[in-house]
């Protein structure tokens, strides 16, 4: 089996709202399968971050592909990669935020297909879910959403970020 489509590209953070202790806008990551022969049983995440402290959070971390059904997305816009989140055209950021929040709302459901892993942050674990979509944006670009559940009932580093290929 060839490696999954989401492993064939690097992904870039376009909006890190809520998760700015984990990575910065412009940081990239790649998902590397544990094997190239047969179905991968997990994926290493290889983050390229400018901040060495943030980089450490992702060192040697891995994600399992879990769940049953892949969620669907319905983005109505294309993200302009040359602009920061607040400079996007009218309606774009709310559209992507809404989609990210929707994915976060279903990420605890064990049936929801996703990549799931955990990282250590300030001595406790954040549960990280990544959703990758091909041709998700209006311009047919791929898109991913990454969300974290860290602390209940506080909201520190609980949220959703997203991006697409460089």
């Amino acid at each position, binding site marked *: 089996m060839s490696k999954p489509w989401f492993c064939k590209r690097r992904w870039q953070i376009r909006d890190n709202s809520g998760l700015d202790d984990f990575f910065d806008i412009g940081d990239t990551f790649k998902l590397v399968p*544990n094997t190239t022969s047969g179905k991968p*049983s997990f994926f290493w995440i290889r983050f390229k971050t400018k901040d060495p402290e943030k980089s450490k959070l992702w060192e040697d971390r891995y994600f399992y592909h879990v769940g049953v059904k892949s969620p669907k997305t319905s983005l109505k816009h294309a993200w302009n990669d040359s602009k920061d989140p607040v400079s996007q055209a009218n309606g774009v950021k709310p559209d992507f935020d809404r989609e990210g929040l929707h994915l976060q709302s279903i990420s605890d459901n*064990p049936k929801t297909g996703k990549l*799931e892993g955990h990282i250590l942050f300030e*001595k*406790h*674990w954040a549960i990280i879910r990544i959703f990758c979509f091909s041709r998700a944006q209006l311009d047919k670009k791929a898109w991913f959403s990454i969300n974290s*559940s*860290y602390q209940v009932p506080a909201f520190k580093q609980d949220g959703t970020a997203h991006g697409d290929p460089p």
Partner: protein
Amino acid sequence: MNYEWLSSQSWTVRDNTAIDGLLDMGDTLTLEPNTLAGPPEFFEVFYTGKYPFWNGTFFYPVGVNAPKITLHFNWDDSQPPGNQAAGVYNDYKAVANALRSHANDPQIARLLGYVQVEGHFAIVNLFCFQKAQPNGNRWFAIDSQWSYASTRQDGTAHGDPP
């Protein structure tokens, strides 16, 4: 990994040393598969005991290589951990510690889930074994990692069927 044998199995905690804020002696966990047609994608936990946060949690079968263990003694379910025959407690502790040392290896086959304890997540790894004890009883070890640089609720408990 074939986890179908785990379907609807109940497990009773026989030793909760180190994670007594997560499980109590005699608590039971039953693993209900999401499907009976083919290998389950996840198991839902049905729990009886002191800590209701287990109910409604889920465990995914993950990893590739099943760990191998050798227990030299049977656990006497009628006795608390401190009253087991000579050598028994240490035998089980050694195996549980060996499993704990593998718990962060993504290749190691186990059930992986999360529970919320005091506002934070504990990463819980569940290792279940058929015919693990010399008398043919099953056995499980449940490992929790809650807080780095602290031993609170970090450790391994174990047990076997009711």
